[in-house]
């Protein structure tokens, strides 16, 4: 055996057995798993290679990180998993980890002789799916395939959540096999999960086993373009090919568009069916909140930004969102962060400038929630949690969290202490409430409000994608939709409840009104959440933009400061909604609702809400939240602008009359359940 040790030489020792990945993989999985090993130490490299071969994997070794990256880039679907050393002379292992997560979204395992807690933690926060201590034993390598499966499963889950729609879509769009393949990749491993789908799956499987389609990161702008194109064509007539042409984005393939479209459709569908999810979230809220907060903290990186915008969103909602999403993944709290970070890289470039202030705040706020999360039982819907967990490694993970949170957040939002009915509303409003949650969650918040259920889905689905939007979208979708669904309105009363929360958030003052407004808006949006979640994911980026918009349009002034919470999160929701505003989809609407609540754009609503808020504010617990949220709130104000406050306002206004009166009282008390969230 010749160790290929040239410095800088990469030995493409691929086939141990000369298998054709595609053929064999399916049958003999995990044999044939394509592993890329990166380590500057030739001795270790050789030993690892030998061990991996002994596990029947296909191994490629690399002693330079740069070379490894270029290899990955050239051969986007050529590897299933990457193992990398931490200390390397040319590039830090964590940096490589980030790159891989962002660009290719492959599971990455870190290893080092260093077993210090800090280093391991760093691995977690940067998104590594595992950390091995050297000397690495072959037993440890035998199970690395689990990370591949898990990741695919999560992605798959996202798709699955989309529900039958996907399947249906699949059938309808034979031309879109390709996308399916990407989604099917995961499915392949999953085995039966998608077997029932059409033949496409089979085809996809073949493809996927060999190729994992390169992930496309659906940035906010990209998503906006996408939605614009879809709207232009008409949702029914929107076919990937035409959308692709309209978007005119170089490098984007029809498959990418097709899969994104699929998600989008599911999202829209979800919006219509969102109401059901809410109730389930109720219980989880309380606990979620805490979890959410914790989760939120982890999200800090990204969340902050997104939430910053959504800052408006009740900190609680964020917390809930996080909690919800993270609740389960408490252990994974670390992971969300990486996602967030990654997101930041991608989508937050813009928001950053805008939210600069918000962001900072977010961080502050986000840090707080962290504690919360740990203790919080995650009632989050299993899906959501799962989504969260899985997604964590990648950006997608983030989204999941957001998503789950969304569902959860609903519960948190629900905290608003209202009875079940509220929860539903909350769920819906979660999207809007999201601001309440600590900004870090920013994104999740959005989803929270929205349909807890939806969120879960989105989160999961998105996370699989690893796209940025996963984070944000879930929430956003929720928000915007409520507008359209009358049923959601029922929850309207809820919004009021939520407003109370918001008021908490807004304790800062200016926000109060806004919060109310948001809450109102959110109620209406609830239904949309579901849809948004999916959309959100894509939209997360959009939201950022939206958030900004909202701020502008809305009163945002007070809120702006607070919104630290990842504006991006808010942005998206609002964003999509604006586009869709006509339709229930307005994912952005959700964001808007959130914002509107915060910003108090809805004057009418605000008034009513204001009262509620005031009440709420009175309570200390609320305050606590408000404090936290203020940061985030500020940010949220930013976003509301995007969302198209008009829609929100109208939604809110509609809802107000009915629910406000009754909900107020309830909210006051419930709203403060936020106490749970450690301030």
């Amino acid at each position, binding site marked *: *055996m*010749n160790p290929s040790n040239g410095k800088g030489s990469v030995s493409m020792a691929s086939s141990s057995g000369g298998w054709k990945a595609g053929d064999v993989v399916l049958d003999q999985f995990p044999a044939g798993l394509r592993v890329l090993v990166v380590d*500057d*130490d030739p*001795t*270790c490299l050789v030993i690892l290679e030998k*061990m991996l071969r002994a596990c029947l994997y296909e191994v490629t070794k690399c002693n330079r990180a740069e070379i490894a990256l270029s290899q990955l880039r050239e051969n986007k679907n050529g590897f299933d998993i990457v193992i990398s050393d931490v200390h390397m002379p040319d590039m830090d292992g964590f940096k490589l980890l980030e790159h891989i997560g962002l660009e290719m979204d492959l599971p990455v395992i870190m290893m080092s002789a260093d077993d210090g807690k800090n280093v391991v933690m760093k691995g977690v926060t940067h998104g590594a799916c595992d950390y091995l201590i*050297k000397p690495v*034993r*072959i037993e440890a390598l035998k199970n690395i395939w689990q990370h591949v499966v898990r990741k695919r499963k999560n992605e798959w889950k996202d798709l699955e959540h989309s529900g039958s729609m996907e399947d249906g879509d699949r059938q309808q769009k034979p031309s879109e096999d390709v996308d399916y393949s990407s989604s099917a990749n995961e499915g392949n491993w999953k085995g039966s999960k998608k077997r029932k789908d059409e033949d496409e799956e089979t085809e996809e499987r073949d493809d996927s086993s060999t190729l994992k389609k390169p992930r496309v990161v659906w940035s906010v702008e990209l998503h906006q373009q996408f939605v614009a194109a879809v709207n232009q064509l008409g949702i029914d007539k929107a076919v990937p090919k035409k959308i692709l042409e309209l978007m005119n984005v170089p490098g984007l393939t029809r498959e990418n568009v097709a899969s994104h479209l699929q998600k989008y459709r599911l999202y829209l569908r979800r919006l219509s069916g969102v109401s059901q999810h809410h109730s389930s979230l109720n219980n989880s809220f309380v606990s979620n909140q805490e979890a959410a907060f914790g989760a939120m903290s982890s999200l800090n990186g990204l969340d902050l930004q997104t939430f910053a915008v959504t800052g408006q969103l009740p900190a609680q909602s964020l917390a809930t969102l996080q909690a919800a999403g993270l609740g389960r993944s408490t252990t994974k709290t670390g992971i969300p962060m990486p996602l967030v970070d990654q997101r930041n890289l991608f989508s937050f470039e813009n928001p950053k400038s805008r939210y600069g202030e918000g962001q900072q705040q977010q961080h502050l706020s986000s840090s707080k929630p962290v504690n919360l999360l740990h203790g919080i039982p995650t009632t989050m819907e299993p899906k959501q949690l799962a989504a969260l967990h899985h997604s964590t490694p990648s950006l997608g993970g983030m989204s999941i969290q957001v998503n789950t949170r969304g569902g959860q957040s609903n519960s948190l939002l629900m905290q608003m202490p209202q009875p079940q009915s509220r929860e539903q509303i909350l769920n819906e409003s979660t999207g809007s409430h999201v601001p309440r949650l600590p900004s870090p969650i920013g994104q999740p918040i959005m989803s929270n409000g929205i349909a807890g259920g939806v969120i879960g889905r989105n989160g999961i689905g998105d996370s699989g994608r690893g796209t940025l939007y996963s984070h944000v979208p879930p929430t956003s979708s929720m928000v915007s939709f409520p507008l359209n669904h009358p049923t959601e309105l029922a929850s309207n009363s809820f919004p009021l409840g939520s407003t109370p929360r918001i008021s908490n958030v807004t304790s800062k003052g200016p926000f109060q009104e806004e919060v109310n407004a948001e809450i109102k808006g959110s109620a209406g949006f609830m239904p949309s959440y579901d849809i948004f979640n999916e959309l959100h994911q894509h939209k997360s980026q959009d939201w950022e933009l939206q958030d900004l918009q909202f701020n502008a349009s809305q009163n945002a002034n007070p809120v702006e400061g607070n919104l630290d919470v990842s504006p991006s999160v808010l942005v998206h929701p609002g964003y999509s909604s604006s586009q869709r505003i006509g339709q229930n989809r307005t994912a952005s609407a959700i964001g808007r609702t959130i914002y509107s609540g915060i910003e108090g754009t809805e004057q009418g609503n605000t008034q009513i809400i204001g009262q509620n808020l005031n009440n709420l504010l009175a309570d200390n617990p609320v305050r606590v939240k408000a404090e936290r949220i203020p940061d985030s709130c500020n940010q949220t104000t930013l976003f509301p602008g995007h969302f198209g406050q008009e829609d929100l306002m109208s939604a809110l206004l509609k809802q107000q009359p009915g629910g406000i009166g009754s909900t107020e009282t309830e909210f006051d008390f419930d709203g403060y359940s936020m106490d749970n969230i450690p301030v």
Partner: protein
Amino acid sequence: MERNQMRRQVALTRQSLFDQGFLDEQFIQLEELQDDANPNFVEEVVTLYYRDSSRIIVNIDQALERNPLDFNKLDNYMHQFKGSSTSIGAKKVKAECTQFREYCRAGNGEGCMRTLQQLKKEYAVLKRRLETYFQ
């Protein structure tokens, strides 16, 4: 007969390496990787190790001659060296590495140099023993 004796000899040599603390379980892992397809895997790895690690030792020597001492750099080198040594299961060498890093962290140049001497000794002894073993 002779072969048996030889085998027994080899087994004893090998056992002594473990008993005397030169090698640890990691070495066994390497042995387990050896198979008919790669009958000399362990030997190849060890050879590779010595080749690569001697380079690191040179770097460390040079770094120790600098004034003032860059402990960070020294620590990095030693981390690398330790990683390699751990991979082949060089127990005593690894212990010296750890000691060296301790001194680095304490900023003890004297201690570093002394430990390095010790390390080189162990390193050389192991090399000899392994060479004998492989023959």
